């Protein structure tokens, strides 16, 4: 004999489904945020590596003048979900402990938005590079 669902069962069931779906939706939003942060971070790392190579390729003598031009703002156009977006980064090349023969080279990439994105690379350059 089929007596159907009681009101209590329907309420409890609905509550469980609502909770699960709410959790699912929250997780989905968090994942979207994490994915965006992941993409931005990868891009910042790529920019930092490119900038470090560009700076050191100028040789030790050219490093100082290259650092003088910092910070630079780089705009990167990306296509996400078939939609082009331009994202700006502040790229800074600076020298520390500079002498006639060596210098610490620091490349810092920062996001210009509210996400506090920050990636930094450090190395040491010697005169004969």
């Amino acid at each position, binding site marked *: 004999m089929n007596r159907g669902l009681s009101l209590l069962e329907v309420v409890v069931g609905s509550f*469980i489904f609502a909770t*699960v*779906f709410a*959790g*699912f939706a929250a*997780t989905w939003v968090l*994942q979207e945020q*994490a*994915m965006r942060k*992941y993409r931005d*971070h*990868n891009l910042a*790392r790529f920019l*930092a*590596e490119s900038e*470090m190579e560009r700076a050191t390729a100028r040789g030790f*003598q050219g490093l100082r003048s290259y650092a003088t031009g910092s910070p630079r703002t780089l705009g990167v156009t990306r296509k996400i979900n078939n939609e082009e977006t331009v994202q700006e980064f502040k790229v800074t090349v600076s020298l*520390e402990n500079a002498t006639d*023969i*060596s210098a*610490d080279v*620091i490349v810092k990439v920062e996001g210009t938005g509210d996400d506090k994105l920050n*990636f*930094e*690379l*450090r*190395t*040491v*350059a*010697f*005169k*004969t*590079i």
Partner: protein
Amino acid sequence: MILLALITAIVGSSTLYMHNRLSSSGHRDRQLKGRYAAQAGLNRALVQLRENSDWNPGTFRETLGSTDIGFEVKVLNNRTNVSPVVAPDGTDLAAGHVWLQSTGIVDGERVPGRFGQATTRAVQPLPVFDHVIHFRGGPVDPAIWRQCTIDSYDGIVSNYVPFRAAGRPDRIKAHVRIDNGGAGTNVNLDGNLLVPASDVPLSIAGGAWSGTRIVDETTYTPLHFRAPEDLEDAPITTPPSSGLIPPGRYYSLPFSTSDLQMEEGDYYFVDFDGQVRENLTLLGPGPTTIYVERGFYPPKNTNAGGQSDQLRVFFIETSATCSFMQARSGGTFVGVVAGRTLRFSTLNPSDFYGAVICSEYFATSSDARIHYDETLANRPLSAATEWVLVNEGTE
């Protein structure tokens, strides 16, 4: 229940996927930071070696700034030994070389593997004049030479017999090595043209050529000359107004005189300008080595009749990177000249006895003559040079 399990599985796998991507991103961060930190370690080791060539700390650690990035460098210094030793990685470490292994440290942990670790050797290369002219490949222009005679002699200037003159066979010993290509017109060349690869652009036309074009795959360690340690921090002084100039550090020769004498030892000039018109005599018996920052304009007769290894002119690279040397018209120069960015030229007619390592050569018009001292081959000459990292190479 099935629906719940399905949703949980989807959310779980998606979360796991995201977690893996974030972990791999963090891993790549560490590798990249480790790679540059390891490079920093090698360069810091070169700085230490420059200050003390016998530096051999075993293991050396340093943090870069106030960060949690740094490096650990293992060092085996074999500079003063005369025979090879076995390096910690099992390879032979040649005499004069320093074995370096640098490992990047990120977040306080070593980054192992080929991304975070670099193993190499450091050496202070010495100049070897195996060629009459070695064009090391200037950053600006390829080698250009024209209307000149390039030949050789046996080390004694008075024994020199001109190329193709009666009584002189073709010696074919004045080899020109060209790293980045170039062009020669109306050149009399008593030697081979050596290029590092068959596709190096090179042309030679007119004149008489007794040699051939040869692909020579020898690689050469970059030569960066520096001021000798005892002169690097010495005050710049004013030289005596004439006669004998003792070894020391000078800005230039701010006077006009016809004759100049120099002793055995090291000299450092910012500019060796053209005020001395006639003769430069070396008192020897050892070599006179002149380190020059900018230009070198030798007197008309420089070390005339002497030995080429007795006068050594080396160009130092500073922020003003273009060094220049010009031999006077109608003069004789006996010596060796080297500079990575050197632009070398001879005024005609003039005789240059010795050998040159340079970036460019211009013979300003006809009848310039360069004679290679055959006794210079395979002989490293002492010089103050910067440490460089090498994997392979000679010099």
